[in-house]
């Protein structure tokens, strides 16, 4: 059976600097994100969800799954350093394998969407792994939305985003802010756009929300 599938990856920083309210907020928001997806049958019919946590290493906590079959998710647990190289490499491996599997099953696979959540203080030099992840020549390269948490480094968050970056502005708790974001995104999902002759492979699956309560929107930075 062929379906149109949007693979959706949540790539979460669980390094020591995220301990306390940031990682607790993400853990709190996971069931809410799940509920948001579940509350919208349009999205539920199309979306597959994967959770990856990273610190010194990256680990797939929930393989790409139909959320209607998921009954539990391993929680994030903060500790260790912040290695973006391992995070981006693991994400790229996961996307590569998942998209190949889905296409082999006959599905139409939308460009994957990534929510990247971090406070933006990596310990490593990550540009090479990031370029491999976002290389236009790699066909399933994802759209990345980056979220800055806590006392996040804005410039790093901007550099990781390909589409849009958001900095928590402190007016809402992080869990509420993330939930607001998920709601905005899900309500704006799945609209067709025009294809430009210059970029026949382009066109966004995700129509980005203009305003998200609790976040300041900043443009992505091309590096």
């Amino acid at each position, binding site marked *: 059976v*062929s379906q149109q599938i949007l693979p959706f990856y949540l790539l979460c920083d669980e390094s020591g600097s995220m301990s306390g309210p940031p990682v607790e907020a993400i853990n709190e928001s996971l*069931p809410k994100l799940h509920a948001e997806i579940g509350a919208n049958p349009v999205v539920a019919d199309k979306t597959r969800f994967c959770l990856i946590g990273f610190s010194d290493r990256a680990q797939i906590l*929930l393989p790409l799954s139909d959320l209607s079959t998921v009954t*539990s*998710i391993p*929680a994030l647990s903060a500790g260790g350093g912040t290695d973006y190289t391992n995070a981006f490499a693991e994400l790229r491996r996961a996307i590569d394998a998942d998209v190949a599997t889905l296409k082999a099953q006959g599905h139409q696979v*939308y*460009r994957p969407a990534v929510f990247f959540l971090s406070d933006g203080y990596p310990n490593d030099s990550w540009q090479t792994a990031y370029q491999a992840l976002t290389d236009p020549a790699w066909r399933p390269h994802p759209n990345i939305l980056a979220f800055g948490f806590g006392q996040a480094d804005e410039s790093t968050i901007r550099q990781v985003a390909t589409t849009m970056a958001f900095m928590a502005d402190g007016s809402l708790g992080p869990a509420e802010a993330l939930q607001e974001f998920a709601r905005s995104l899900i309500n704006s999902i799945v609209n067709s756009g025009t*294809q430009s002759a210059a970029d026949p492979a*382009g066109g966004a699956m995700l129509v980005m929300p203009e305003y998200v309560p609790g976040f300041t929107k900043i443009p992505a930075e091309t590096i």
Partner: protein
Amino acid sequence: MFRVLRKFRPKRSRRSDVTDQPRAEHSAEPAVDTAAPPVSVPARSDVDSAPVAPPSRRDRATITIQPPASLASPGPATATASVAHPRGISAPLVLAGSPRLGSDPGRIPAGPDIVADSLVDGGQWSGGVIRAGSIRGDEHRYFGTTRQDAMGFWTFADPRGRDGRGDPGGVLLACVADGLGSKPRSQLGSQLACQATRDAVPGLLPAILSHDGTGDDPAGQSIVDAVCARLRQHAGGLAVPADDLATTLVAALVWRVDAGRHRARLVQVGDSTAFVHGGDGWRPCYVADEGGVYSTATFALPNHVGAINVTTIDLIAGDLLVLCSDGLANPMRSPGVREQLAEWWGRGHIPSLPEFYWQLSFRAQSYGDDRTAVCLWIQ
């Protein structure tokens, strides 16, 4: 709705069995009052401040998910999903997957340019029989927005009739247009594209019918130019950007070549497409690029025309030519959908109008776009 449990979990391997856990497992956890504030996430500082274990051995809590009722699967996709209505009318049949999105007209759209939820049409011309339908996608129904697809078919006198080889209604024009979902008034664009094609064809007919089909028929460019001019003119009158009316178009002119043969010339811009069903099953008239990831982005009139794809196909009695929006072409990727449509429409079987509408209303998980088809059975 959720709680966090503290327990040690061994390293989860990639492709773990988490998705295979029985649905009942969540009920094994004590229920949590859903009205409670999110205090069910315990303080974590004792863990976080402990010496950091390698991530693969980290002490992880587990977040238990209570699936919302709306995520419950409606059950297996079988013919039994079509439950006979008490008055004998069947609900739309599920042909692929287990859609959680319902299929019902739902909220009435608001706005100045809304169109009917569904159209069903049909007719006969000297070459055969037509059944046509345009159905608002279940996603548009869910969101309370209007259908953006359009369609139409018309006959014209065969200009070769003067020498006795033609007939008064001998040339058929069929159009399907798909207004872009991202554009607020594209339902106007799709209707205008069909009407502008109809208006352009009479002047182009002698050239189209005399073109031998080798190389591109320049009439394709003429039709596209006429549609673009109409869209831009209309947008100017509304004082909106022409892109607000952006639409795809696939059009076919069909005429008799000789006693056993009809010829169809197709013009396509964007992802609306066409299929033929004949003795050897389904044949696409256009081949879509399946190499990369899927995108809803499409070439569209009037400002992103890209390629104008003109093709000529010969049809014999018993053939079925289907012009359709991607709301039909995409679910037809599923073998089960193709086979069921062949069963309904193949071998020269022509459904009644109510049958056709019900058949075209089939459901397929994740495919919630407007669905439009003009089907021409050649006789």
